[in-house]
């Protein structure tokens, strides 16, 4: 009944995918360009990649970025998982308001979140940016993504599974520990991967909360771009694209992008 798609519609869709991936392909190709000025293609080289590892500033920025990402992932995964579970499995007053609270950070312009935390830390605590401040900011915008991912999975879980465990004599905590937690684990891991990708990439919120000595990789890249375009930037960018794509691929395999139905009895479709 679906029939065949019109040729122009299929062509249009193919064009869109080309449009989506063209810049990324260009970036990767030019990271292997011999030309220092990176305007035209002069020849193939792998030189830019080993050179990255001699750049101390860049390595320092990478270290800061990874430290922030680890704190952000741990913090937002714990808080977001609890939120997602609570919303999916428990009835309580204010559930609707909590859902709104989770969605709000996702529609707030990044620059607003950046300046609000900058003012918050500066006015109340006289803090002018640090690694810890960046980490707190990152936890704040990552929580929602973890919560939404975990909630989707937990909502698809059959409540009878936990009840069955309770009927068999498990304590409330035991049922949670041995039934619920293993079932939602893939969503928790997927949420953590998303949080990592978000934290690793963030520029705007980070820029307002970074201080001396807490330059992250995106900030480093941003200032390099402002100075001029070189294949070195393309090379770092290519590595970042590879790392984030890998994180996303793992998140996808773990089911971050679907709400898997977990049933007591497998039902045949």
């Amino acid at each position, binding site marked *: 009944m679906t029939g065949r798609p019109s040729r122009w519609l299929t062509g249009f869709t193919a064009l869109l995918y080309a449009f989506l991936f063209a810049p990324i392909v260009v970036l990767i190709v030019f990271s292997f360009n011999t030309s220092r000025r990176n305007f035209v293609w002069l020849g193939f080289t792998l030189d830019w990649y080993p050179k990255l590892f001699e750049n101390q500033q860049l390595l320092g920025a990478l270290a800061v970025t990874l430290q922030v990402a680890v704190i952000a992932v741990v913090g937002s995964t714990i808080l*977001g998982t609890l939120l997602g579970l609570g919303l999916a499995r428990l009835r309580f007053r204010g559930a609707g308001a909590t859902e709104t609270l989770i969605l709000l950070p996702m529609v707030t312009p*990044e620059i607003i979140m950046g300046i609000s935390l900058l003012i918050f830390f500066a006015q109340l605590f006289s803090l002018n940016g640090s690694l810890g401040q960046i980490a707190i*900011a990152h936890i704040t915008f990552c929580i929602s993504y973890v919560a939404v991912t975990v909630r989707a999975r937990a909502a698809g879980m059959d409540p009878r599974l936990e009840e069955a465990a309770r009927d068999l004599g498990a304590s409330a905590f035991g049922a949670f520990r041995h039934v619920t937690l293993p079932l939602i684990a893939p969503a928790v891991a997927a949420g953590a991967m998303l949080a990592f990708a978000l934290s690793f990439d963030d520029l705007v919120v980070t820029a307002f909360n970074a201080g001396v000595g807490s330059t992250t990789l995106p900030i480093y890249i941003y200032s390099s771009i402002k100075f001029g375009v070189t294949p070195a930037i393309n090379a770092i960018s290519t590595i970042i694209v590879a790392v984030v794509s890998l994180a996303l691929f793992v998140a996808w395999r773990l089911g971050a992008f679907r709400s898997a139905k977990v049933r007591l009895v497998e039902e045949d479709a």
Partner: protein
Amino acid sequence: MDVVRSASAPARAEGSVRAPWAERLAGAAFVLPGVAWLAIFFLFPLAIIVVVSFGSVDPAGHVTLAQPGLQSYAQATRPEYLPAFANSIRYALITTVLSLAIGYPVAYWISRYGGERKTLLLILVMLPFWTSYLIRTYAWMIILRDNGVLNSVLMAAGLTSDPIPLLNTDFSVVLGMTYGFLPFTILPLYVSIDRLDRHLVEAGRDLYASGSGAFLHVTLPLTMPGIVAASLLTFIPALGDYVTPDLLGGAQTTTIAKIIQVIFTSGRDWPDGSALGFLLMAITMAGTLLALRTLRREVLA
């Protein structure tokens, strides 16, 4: 996908179900830490912006609330800033319309003809979104510069003898934003098109509607909630976007986000910056509420 779905899902019936007290207590234990975190580090700082926007700067450079007033709002809406407001809104509007025009046919194609590869096709749409906005915007700089990829191709093909100025124009900003926010448009459109009962379209055809007639009078009105959601989810990030106008728009392109950035990094007049920030938030929230009402009306109709 799930983000979109839960955004449009009707809110859970609040308080209408009586939960046992133990369950309520457990609910609090699960939800409280996250809610508390967001209240302290998200809601409270937003409230501080509002408070600071009514303050002023004392001679020592500190924010003071000694004479609270609307002076920062007078500053924020002064004539020099009006082009920035106009630009932000114009870029966001054009981006939204373009994204809908491009995204709808694609979402339609994926839903109708994607078959077993639907999920993969959607993930491919989302992949660029997750891989660093900064880096993708930078990639467009390489493509659009005077001696960039696109101009090289055009000149090699003999289509132009001199490079066409593409970067630092309205064109490059709109291109970059459309590219960046297209995934936000396609996903809600896809959800809404995929949910559409195809028998309704067939009924239209059986009643002698032409293919385009059935599309215009059945498919389009029934997917309107998706169109509204998609417009909102594209317009909001486009309105507050900083990276695209900064990297692809060049120095002469001003937007609200760019002015806020300049105020907070070079000057210390936080009340002025906060007032601008609050206005940006207000436009965003107004858009959200306006579209939410339309959305609810469309869904219930």
